[in-house]
């Protein structure tokens, strides 16, 4: 089992969700987050005073998938989240030891 965490531009959320649905991803967690990578922020000016806004709004997607599906999901995210501009985000992959369904305490890949 693999966990995919992807930080993407808020404007790409709909197309990423569609692309994941298409390849058969069934469970996904979406969080509105703020942060920055190398892109840093932008400046805002209020009555001549400049403020640097360094934490920008982003979307974090999390999903745990069977190994075979995880690779295809990464490809789908890459394709659908890319605008080619700085600030498109990152994808992080990690191995998952166990998954447990709370309702019936079932364990393993079957619960995904």
């Amino acid at each position, binding site marked *: 089992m693999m966990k995919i965490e992807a930080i993407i531009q808020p404007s790409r959320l709909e197309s990423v969700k569609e692309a994941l649905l298409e390849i058969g991803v069934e469970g996904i967690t979406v969080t509105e987050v703020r942060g920055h990578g190398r892109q840093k922020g932008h400046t805002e*000016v*209020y*009555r*001549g005073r400049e*403020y640097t*806004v360094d934490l920008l709004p982003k979307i974090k997607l999390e999903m745990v998938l069977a190994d075979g599906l995880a690779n295809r999901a990464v490809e789908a995210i890459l394709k659908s989240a890319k605008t080619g501009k700085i600030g498109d985000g990152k994808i992080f992959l990690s191995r998952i030891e166990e998954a447990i369904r709370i309702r019936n305490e079932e364990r393993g890949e079957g619960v995904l």
Partner: protein
Amino acid sequence: MKRMGVACCGLIILVLTAFPLLAQQASVPATPPAPTASVATPEVPQAVTEKLNQLEQKVTAAQSSADNAWMLVSAALVLLMTGPGLALFYGGLVRQKNVLAIMMQSFALMALITVLWALVGYSLCFGGNGPVIGNFEHAFLRGVGAAPNPDYAGTIPQTTFMIYQLMFAIITPALITGATAERMKFSGTVLFMTLWFLVVYAPMAHMVWGKGGLLNASQGGRFPTLDFAGGTVVHVTSGVSALVCALYLGKRVGYPRQPMPPHSLVLSFTGACLLWVGWFGFNAGSALASNGLASSAFVATHFGAAAAALGWSMAEWLKHGRPSALGAISGAVAGLVAITPAAGFVGPIPALAIGFIAGLSCFWMVTRIKGMFRYDDALDAFGVHGAGGTIGALLTGVFAQAAINPIFGAGKPVGGLDGRWRQVGNQLVGVLIAWSIALVGTIVLLKLVDLLTGVRVQEEHEVAGLDITLHGEEGYNLET
């Protein structure tokens, strides 16, 4: 709170004993000219004379109804400027944790000044005919009823005049809260504003608008200052006092290192638009009648605001590359401030000029001068009201015309455009007196209030936000 109560009582006693002395030195009021008696020849039957008298009464009553309707609406419009207008405008500009505290200050003044007005305020502003301050003729609103007061507004009940003028007294101290925002104690604010209203506002209002006042233009003041709707009385006094307060209180914790952007420009935008609308009552209502002068002031007000919004936006666009919403609304407010003293004296084209000049200069004040001197006028009460009011008062002397308002008598020149440049000097005297009384009054009162209740909140409270620490509530509980 107890100390505050004692202080208030002390002050009221002081006022009660001191001011009648001043007021009584004034000259005996001139007796109004006797109405010219109609020559009733014996041939006119009694019935015709009676009918004529009835008609005359009906004409007077009709004019009074029309004027009274407009003035009551104007009074409501001016109240609308404080709440919700100014409360929203300022509320949006502060950080989220202080939104209720700043709105509450405006609202508290709506209640506080109203009570003071009924007790002594109206009388100190408009009672008697002293040169500096009124007397106690109308204390507890004695003698204020349905009958007009011919000294001020001969066609409307004095009650209407009284309630209309009250709304000005409410918004003036409320404007100062823009400079003290996010760090002044509520108790200190209440006490300071009470004293400030009595010591700074009342004498200034009487000098400019009160009968016999030193600066009164229509009733023979020593230095006739043209101030149609309160450029000196409202904006210069509040703006200059705001600067003193900002300097006395010191900077907010973290200023200017830490970002303090407005928490909701949507609120500020709504507030600014309400201010613009309310200002028609403020300026056009200052004609005190529903007449041509009111229309002229209405038009000048609107044109001044529009030109100033464009002026500020243009300057910002050139300087920062983008015209901002906050810039546009700040410009409009600056224009409204500057056109206030001029509204009933200038034509529409000079109004455009005054507005445009005010928009540019207030932009410069707020973006350059404030940064150079490094004082923390949190919401720019001085940069907009102090600077805009001063510029407007001086430009009134330049652009005032007898064709719009022959205040010195039919055919007599009024301002610079009429060739009477001396008026600019009179305006300067008015402005200097307003600056002086505001500077001295505010320094003394702040010192006094600091001893009695303190003026600044504790640092932990400031960091946590005044909403929760001073009022025990929060502006937004969005997730409940």
